[in-house]
């Protein structure tokens, strides 16, 4: 178990270093950052000034190490557009995005796990077909379009829900559905196929031969085994949702970090964009690490050697 823990932790650290390099390089390779920061209309002196000011004239590796060592201490630089520390800008917005992400994940789990289980224990019935339909439609519907339709129908036509902003919990309902619905198919399919596989396995036959009640077999033996791979996928899905929040936050004018990223891209506020890419990647790495640990906790084959 300790070896497993160390291996996973080591991998997480390596991935973090790799993503930090990529988010650092992303800005450099796609054009001269000095020009981007100074603006298209800047004179060559202004560009030179920016280049020196930000240290763009030094070797890349030095720039990276300096940026990374400051990032570790929580200093992600300053936004040249807003003249505010990036950490502060993100700190003000992250709460909204995390709330949205967790709500969307909960919505997806509450919808997909029961449906997946029902579809697996009643294959080829109407409930299975309903689950399949929901998952097929969910995968094909662009989440931003789904969001817009909800705004038109629920927000404007029936005036049930507020259409933009983040003031009350009601503001989060439509964004939660729009974002969570997209993750539902993946989870539901995994629950369904996992349950079908476990239900056909030898140890379920043993449980039946022991005369256990059907409900107990389903809950104690089938779901317990089928849920293990689902846990891993949940972390991945939450990471995807946070990444996809840029689209949904834009649609619903939720001022989270996705929205911040979009606005910052529009005004070439590179340090902010860079920091958000890094932050979302690190959140993903932490989530997968935690899910690995949870996996080990749930699966004795990993936990007990």
């Amino acid at each position, binding site marked *: 178990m300790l070896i497993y823990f160390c291996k996973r932790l080591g*991998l997480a650290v*390596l*991935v973090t270093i*790799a*993503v930090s390099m*990529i*988010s650092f390089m*992303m*800005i450099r390779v*796609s*054009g001269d950052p000095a020009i*981007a920061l100074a603006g298209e209309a800047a004179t060559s002196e202004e560009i030179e000034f920016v280049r020196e000011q930000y240290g763009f004239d030094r070797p890349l590796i030095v720039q990276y190490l300096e940026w990374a060592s400051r990032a570790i201490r929580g200093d992600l630089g300053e936004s040249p557009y807003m003249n505010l520390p990036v950490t502060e800008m993100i700190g003000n917005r992250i709460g909204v995005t995390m709330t949205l992400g967790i709500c969307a994940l909960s919505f997806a789990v509450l919808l997909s796990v029961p449906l997946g289980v029902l579809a697996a224990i009643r*294959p080829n019935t109407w409930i299975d077909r309903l689950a399949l339909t929901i998952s*097929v*439609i969910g*995968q*094909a*519907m*662009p*989440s*931003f*379009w789904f969001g*817009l*339709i909800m*705004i*038109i129908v629920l927000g*404007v036509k029936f005036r049930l829900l507020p259409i933009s902003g983040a003031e009350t919990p009601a503001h989060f309902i439509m964004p939660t559905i729009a974002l969570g619905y997209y993750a539902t198919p993946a989870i539901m399919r995994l629950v369904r196929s996992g349950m079908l596989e476990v239900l056909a396995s030898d140890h379920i036959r043993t449980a039946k031969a022991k005369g256990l009640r059907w409900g107990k077999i389903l809950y104690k033996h089938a779901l317990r085994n089928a849920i293990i791979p689902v846990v891993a996928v949940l972390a*991945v899905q939450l*990471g995807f949702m*946070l*990444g*996809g929040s*840029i*689209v949904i936050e*834009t649609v619903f004018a939720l001022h989270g970090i*996705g929205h911040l*990223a*979009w606005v910052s*891209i*529009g005004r*070439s506020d590179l340090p902010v*964009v860079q920091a*958000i*890419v890094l932050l*979302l*990647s690190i959140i*993903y*790495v932490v989530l*997968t690490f935690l899910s690995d640990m949870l996996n080990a906790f749930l699966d004795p084959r990993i936990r007990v050697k």
Partner: protein
Amino acid sequence: MTDQAQSFDKGLGLEVVFPSPGRIMRRRMLKSKGFLLGLTMFTLVVLMALLAPLISPHDPYDQDLSQRLITPVWTEQGSWEYPLGTDYLGRDNLSRVFYGARISLLIGFSCMLIAAGIGTSLGLLAGYFGGIVDMVVSFMITVRLALPAVLVAVAVVALIGGSMDVVIVVLGCLVWDRFIVVVRANVQQIKSMDYVPAAKAAGCSVFWILMREIMPNLMNNLVVIATLEIGRVILLEAALSFLGMGVQPPMPSWGLMIAEGKEFMLFEPYLVMIPGVALFILILGMNLLGDGLRDVTSPEGGA
């Protein structure tokens, strides 16, 4: 095996007929509603794209401000002149939908080819050689999955400048993960089959084994993944264009049309509905086709 059905025990009353794989596949195709529906939708969109210049009633770029925001034909103010109405610049929606199919399909196929190239070659190497190569490739997948794809794509496209070529390259370089995962797992499985060591023993080169012994056995799965990935890429492109960082105006990208229609959606919801439905049909078609192909080609039958 040939198409000819085999049977034995004739006259025993214990007659069993085994149809050939090709025949099973065709029978499954015709029986799978999802596959047929997906194929129909996909064909519909392909026809729209191919025949766009012939069937479009107007030039998709023709602006006519006197004809702006005309509602579709089924509404009171609609007319057959503009069956799906016009947008805020007076362009014909139907023609833009037809030409938009070209953009979606072009981007979908090109990105898929780039991604398939990267993913298949890396997956082949990782699966065949294992060890350190496999570790490096697995690490690449983990890093790639950690990056928020939409955000990175939007940022890079914004920095380089949005155009269709840029979108294709950027997305193609971001969506190879599933190709690697599937190819790698598949190669590991195939590698242990007797015919690969047999080829090795016969002195075949690694390249020969990869191309002639392993690749043909991957094709079914590759086609399935490619189909599903086209759908995924089209979805990503739409999101990018919707955010204004993908295909640039005045091109009739469906995602862009939704973004443009968003301004007017409270009064003219059809501006958002029409390109959205087109997107939905295409992506649904690709997904059904991909899932259908998987069920149809899987040797053990599946669901």
